[in-house]
């Protein structure tokens, strides 16, 4: 049980600045997910916490103790790797017992802990097997088991589900969540999959090019993205963006673009005011667009032509042409839209996003 604090953390590889001034406070028992595209510095940050990468500058504290110069073995952490990193020449039991043997635990204690972990993960029947005789999901469980037998202060996960097929990944995701509920160990989890980040994390840290973009709980990131990158990265299908110009007409602000003419809700009056006459990026999530009859007022809707219909079962994704750009609308599965149909899509006025076009920050 531990808290982890990261203070002004930097990592330079020769002339590549991989991690830039990362600050993060991870509370006891919290499950924090670092998410971002590849090369964003999330894995490097995790490896610095593990002690596998040297720290160029900044500090990492576990329970208020600076661990910068501690060897990985002295940090009392456990890590699960993307390729599982199971010792191929050892049985499952020995894989799980290795850490305890290295730490000179009593044989009976080792046996008890391995049995307990195996029971939690449902791998009691494979303890005598070698890793190569196991399926991907089973190997993943062994890797988890090896981490939990140690009762470490912090769990580190480096994309542990990436090597599993889609169905198993969803299943293991749920199990990981349950496991965390049960053990309550502080965990830092790295992934490039925003769905994994949203479903697993108590809090999610979005990174890009070594910078932390936003830290917050999943719904906060979803509803109030701090910038254009977070808005586009979180959520699937991704948020629709369009460049619009803010104009003032009769005391109201309007967002006007190619094929778009929307009245800005009153809530934005203050923040959008200074942008009058300027271009901004307008964003709306696919699920906040809904088909309305042509008689609906045009000030809160967009006219579009259907280009592609993707039937997912639970919903239908419509790729629609709005002027020169393509947007995606997620609509009810009962909708019978055909390619080339003309539609009027109403936007949910509470769910509009505007971003500064240069600084990319939310307005």
């Amino acid at each position, binding site marked *: 049980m531990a808290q982890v604090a990261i203070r002004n953390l930097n990592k330079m590889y020769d002339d590549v600045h991989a991690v830039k001034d990362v600050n993060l406070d991870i509370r006891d028992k919290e499950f924090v997910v670092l998410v971002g595209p590849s090369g964003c510095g999330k894995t490097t940050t995790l490896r610095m916490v*593990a002690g596998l990468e040297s720290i160029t500058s900044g500090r990492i504290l576990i329970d208020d103790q600076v661990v910068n110069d501690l060897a*990985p073995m002295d940090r009392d952490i456990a890590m699960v790797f993307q390729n599982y990193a199971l010792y191929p020449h050892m049985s499952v039991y020995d894989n799980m017992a290795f850490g305890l043997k290295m730490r000179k635990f009593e044989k009976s204690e080792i046996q008890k802990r391995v049995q307990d972990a195996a029971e939690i993960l449902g791998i009691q029947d494979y303890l005598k097997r070698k890793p190569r005789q196991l399926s991907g999901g089973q190997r993943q469980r062994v890797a988890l088991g090896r981490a939990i037998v140690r009762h470490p202060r912090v769990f580190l996960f480096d994309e542990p589900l990436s090597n599993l097929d889609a169905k198993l990944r969803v299943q293991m995701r749920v199990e990981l969540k349950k496991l965390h509920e049960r053990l309550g160990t502080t965990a830092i989890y790295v992934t490039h999959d925003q769905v994994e980040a949203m479903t697993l994390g108590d809090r999610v840290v979005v990174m890009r090019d070594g910078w932390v973009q936003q830290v917050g709980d999943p719904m906060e990131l979803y509803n109030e993205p701090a910038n254009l990158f977070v808005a586009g990265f979180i959520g699937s299908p991704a948020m629709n963006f369009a460049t619009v110009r803010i104009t003032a007409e009769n005391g109201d602000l309007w967002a006007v673009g190619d094929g778009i003419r929307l009245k800005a809700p009153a809530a934005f009056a203050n923040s959008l005011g200074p942008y009058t006459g300027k271009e901004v990026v307008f964003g709306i999530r696919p699920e906040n667009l809904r088909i309305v009859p042509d008689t609906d007022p045009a000030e809160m809707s967009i006219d579009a032509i259907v280009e592609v219909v993707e039937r997912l079962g639970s919903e239908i994704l419509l790729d629609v042409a709005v002027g020169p750009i393509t947007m995606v609308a997620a609509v009810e599965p009962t909708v019978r839209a055909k390619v080339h149909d003309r539609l009027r899509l109403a936007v949910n006025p509470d769910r509009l996003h505007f971003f500064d076009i240069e600084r990319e920050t939310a307005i």
Partner: protein
Amino acid sequence: MIEGARWRRWVFFNIPLLLFIVALLFPFYWMIVTSVRPDKELYRPWNAANYTPFWTLNPTLEHIRELLTETLFSTWMMNTMLIATASTLISLFCGLLAGYALSRLKFPFAGSIGTGIFITYLVPQTLLFIPLADVIRNFHLGDSPWALILTYPTFLIPFCTWLMMGYFKSIPKELEECARIDGATRWKAMVYIIFPIAVPGILSAGIFAFTLSWNEFIYALVFLSSPEQKTVPVGVTSELVRGDVFYWGQLMAGALLGSIPVAFVYSFFVEHYVSGITGSVKG
């Protein structure tokens, strides 16, 4: 596999394979036949009526008996065995540690040191024996097994290092990182995790090193002079060719008996050896 008509299988697979096997095994066959052929058949002219070069109807163990009783062959075998084993162990030990360091530790000039080691392997022995002879003389090691035990590693260590480097690189570094997080020091992670996984690579390097030192000729010829110190390749060629007289039966018997230990080592480890060359650890 070759697909299609039956003749294609014969032309592109069976016949080439057969030719290959014959070409490879013929020298061994020749060696065996010659070593059991009685002298009067051996020196029969090619145009004699009963000339049978490819088989013999009167096999004899006479040459092998003479080789073992009238020459120092068993001493040479012991010498070769001692020298090959000792120099292989030394080279494996150094090559293992050097290979690990060069492939895993980050230190300045690691890459150029690796290349440097490889380049030393490329210096031909036929050049290197001249300065080495001087070194051996200065240290008064001439005509003793140490002359070879200490000089063979000059080409075996680069070889083992290079082979082990490649093998270590094929082992995912996460295994070691995981072990270090699990509580192992770098040394323990190396001994408990990396070396056991690298066994096929270590065996390959060992077999190669053993074969190279077993067959080595030039250093053994130059650094050893008295008959009781010689190794098999040098002993057989220098003691069984007297002037222009070739004792073909004994020569071939010596070559045959001399190749048995190597053949034995190969066949014993062949499975590991192949997986060592094809490399890679499947997790």
